[in-house]
């Protein structure tokens, strides 16, 4: 995978002020204050049901908070999201990519070349004509990343993108995440995998029971976690 080094552009800071989320009387996210800034790789960690995906969907704008507000310092940047189970259209791999270019109003004449370029970059060139839904799990996730790549996002959200993949496919996804980062994209990603967090994260945001317990640099988080729940989580003990 080629990696171009482009100086990270200044990406608008994002602030979540007292953001909370309720669904049918359940408080799924308690009032939360979080900021995302710079071109960092933030990994959101925590046990199932901690509210990781929820926080990300709120930040991305897929969900409206029940309270509080979300503010960008400056114009909201281009964002993209890669989901745990890639949602691919019932078309060929190539058509999945030309589709987003059409949505972006890229002139028709340029779409195919750009799409092929992205397929090439993510090692999918040989699969261009194959229906996206018959690709393997790893190939599908790479296609989802290629699609996000075409959007040229300043902020990329990833919701447990490797949870259903084998080690080789996980490696490919992590390489892709780093390629985005090298290009100057802010990464916000959820994971259960402690090793993955050590490999990828610039900072860790630890959640538990619908609350953000800490947001600290990776080394600091693993050496001196700021909460008993986080240290239990790092030791691999179940936390509920």
């Amino acid at each position: 995978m080629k990696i171009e080094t482009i100086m990270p552009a200044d990406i608008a800071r994002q602030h979540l002020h007292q953001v909370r989320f309720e669904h049918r009387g359940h408080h799924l996210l308690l009032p939360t204050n979080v900021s995302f800034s710079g071109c960092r790789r933030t990994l959101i960690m925590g046990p199932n049901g901690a509210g990781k995906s929820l926080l990300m969907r709120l930040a991305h704008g897929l969900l409206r908070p029940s309270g509080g507000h979300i503010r960008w310092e400056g114009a909201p940047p281009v964002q993209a999201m890669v989901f745990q189970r890639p949602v691919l259209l019932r078309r060929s791999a190539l058509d999945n990519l030309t589709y987003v270019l059409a949505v972006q109003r890229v002139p028709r004449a340029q779409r195919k070349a750009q799409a092929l370029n992205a397929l090439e970059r993510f090692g999918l060139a040989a699969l261009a004509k194959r229906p996206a839904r018959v690709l393997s799990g790893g190939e599908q996730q790479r296609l989802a990343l290629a699609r996000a790549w075409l959007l040229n996002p300043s902020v990329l959200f990833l919701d447990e993108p490797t949870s259903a993949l084998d080690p080789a496919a996980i490696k490919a996804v992590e390489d892709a995440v780093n390629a985005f980062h090298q290009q100057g994209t802010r990464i916000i990603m959820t994971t259960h995998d402690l090793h993955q967090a050590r490999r990828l994260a610039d900072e860790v945001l630890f959640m538990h029971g619908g609350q953000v317990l800490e947001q600290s640099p990776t080394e600091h988080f693993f050496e001196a976690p700021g909460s008993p729940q986080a240290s239990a989580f790092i030791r691999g003990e179940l936390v509920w």
Partner: protein
Amino acid sequence: MPVSDNPFYTALALILGMDQRLFDIVTLSLQISLIAVLVACLLALPLGAALALWRFPGRNIVIVMLNALMGLPPVVAGLCVYLLLSRAGPLGQWGLLFSPSAMVIAQVILVLPIIAALTRQQVESLHNEYDEQLRSLGLSPLRMIPTLLWDARFGLLTVILAGFGRASAEVGAVMIVGGNIDGVTRVMTTSIVLETSKGNLPLALGLGIVLLSLVTLINALAHVVSETAKRRLG
């Protein structure tokens, strides 16, 4: 039973004889039903998709009404179109009553609710799967409609066939608004009614077999097309 009384023999003789009158009746039947289904699709596919995507007050009432209209008796639809198009009716000056156009209008009214209601179901389940991804890509609900319709295309083919089945099988509506005029508005189903009432049961049954074969052929073609495409696209 003499050979001429055997409906299968009659059907075979009708087909092999390439009877010009039979040919005209079959052509007219197919023309009317296919045009009706085409017009109904143009209206009902976007309508069904819109109903799947938009949340508005009274949406559930609209869905229940649409589902109920799937069971609209053809004679009632025929009667309504008859009243609209008759000389004294609001659209009387169009002079469409007892013409193939009137039959198309009546069949559109019968087929539209079926295609719209079933499209709504198909698109709604696909929308559940696609919604977050499409919104993440920045699509408005309006822009989602063509995407969802295209990606639901295999399921929608069955929906359209259900509509075509309704159109080609019904007799009440085309009888009332078409009048079963020989050479003008006589179709397969109205001929069958006529031959039955005349007591010419072998011919009636023969026509029935021809009609059934045609519908089967069209469904088989659609099935082969969709299965091949499905296998290729996963």
